[in-house]
């Protein structure tokens, strides 16, 4: 049993987090884990969409969200905030990008700032689960494939109506031809 730490005030994250952190196994131990997160975080802020192993993506997602939310809370004037950004983002230009691009972009967001997609595994290849981690509102086309056969989509609706109409016409034709045949036979 423990008490909540009240020295830091944090904003609530908009997605479910794991109760325990992952270790991100590596030969350097905990500092190596931090380095892995730093690298991935920098890459995410550079490219806005990256493909990687699921474990690492899920772990980095929390850090990315927390860094953006702290940047929104505190702003670039705060010394501790700058320290934090410099620690997690290895390349200086993306610290600027964080405050100049991402903070204005996510200021009014009421949903999570990032999105994690499950990606297919490579075959033959390493068996680990893969994922795509992206920042929302990025300039790339969406990687989500809508279900092309959904009944809700307009073209499917029109097509089904057209099909129905065609079928009705066909039935009418058959009925008429049958009537004609009866008439001629009598």
């Amino acid at each position, binding site marked *: *049993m*423990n*008490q*909540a*730490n*009240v020295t*830091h*005030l*944090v*904003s*609530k*994250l908009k997605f479910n*987090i794991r*109760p325990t*952190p992952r270790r991100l196994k590596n030969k350097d131990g*905990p*500092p190596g884990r*931090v380095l892995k997160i730093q690298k991935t975080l920098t890459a995410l802020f550079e490219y806005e969409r990256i493909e990687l192993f699921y474990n690492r993506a899920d772990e980095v997602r*929390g*850090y990315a969200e*927390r*860094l953006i939310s*702290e940047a929104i809370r505190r702003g670039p004037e705060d010394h501790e905030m700058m*320290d*934090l950004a410099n*620690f*997690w983002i290895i390349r200086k230009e993306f610290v600027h990008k964080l405050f100049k691009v991402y903070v204005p972009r996510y200021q009014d967001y009421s949903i999570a700032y990032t999105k994690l997609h499950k990606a297919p595994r490579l075959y033959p290849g390493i068996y680990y689960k893969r994922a795509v981690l992206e920042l929302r509102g990025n300039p790339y086309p969406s990687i989500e494939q809508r279900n092309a056969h959904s009944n809700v989509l307009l073209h499917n609706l029109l097509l089904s109506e057209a099909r129905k109409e065609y079928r009705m016409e066909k039935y009418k034709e058959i009925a008429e031809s049958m009537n004609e045949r009866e008439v001629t036979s009598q």
Partner: protein
Amino acid sequence: MHGALKMSAAVGRVLSQQMRQSLKVLKSLAGKKNRCFSASVPIPKEGSVSNNEQKSVNRGKSADPLECRFMYPEFLPDPKPEYRNSLREKLERADMMARRSKIDIPEFYVGSILAVTVSDPHAPGKSNRFVGICIKRSGCGLRANFILRNVVDNQGVEVLYELYDPTIQKIDCLRLEKRLDNELLYLRDAPEEYSTFSFDMEPEIIPEGTPVPVNDLKVTLKPQPWLEKWERKDLKGVRDIVVNQKREMKAKAALKPWEKYDLMKIYRETIPEEEQKEIFAEVYSDLHNLEITRQKMKRQRTFIRPKKSG
């Protein structure tokens, strides 16, 4: 109004007993409970005058309920997700408020000097008073506890009390102050004079509205052996900790300089601001209610007495 509160307190107590028995019954009762509270909430909102009345409870408080988190850390639930249960937390808060309406639990911090009177079946007078410095506060909800330390007849004594223990008769804060650290467990390895306090100490009065004083006393530890590896704890309240080279190297190897940047660790150890606001908004209004009822009771008592004598 007082009757309603009393009833709600009673409901809260019943709830805590039934907690284990059936969730269904609980839920319906919890609904009742909410209605009780919502009926009593509008009163403090009527005027900001009640802020002045409340000062005796919340010294140096601001209008922001979030500032309560330093004063009442036990109202925040355990951040571990496996221990979270919103219904249980709500009921516990209700029980805590019910207890607070019975005895006055003062504001105190680690480093404050407290006097606790408990009913003790073992003591000859059936009550026992202990004075000491609070060296640790932990636990949340009804399980919140604190450790008092004192040196009596050159013998260090520590007693663990639960904050909401029904046997506690009275808690007095004799000296309200903070120290440089969140835990003063190193006083166990410090010379006796740092944790010696007289049992007949007079309570010190701090003028209202002033912030809680921080005592920047630096302690020199006794020579080794120690109970813990204090050189690794980054203690601000301890003057020059000297250890041999091997221990120093090991302490250096055990350093975790990245921990203060670990955003998710910080997040997992605390309750997010939005939830804190929700919790303290609820408690804040209840504290107002308590203070108002207490004052009403006082007025009633003074009004009744002349009638009786006449």
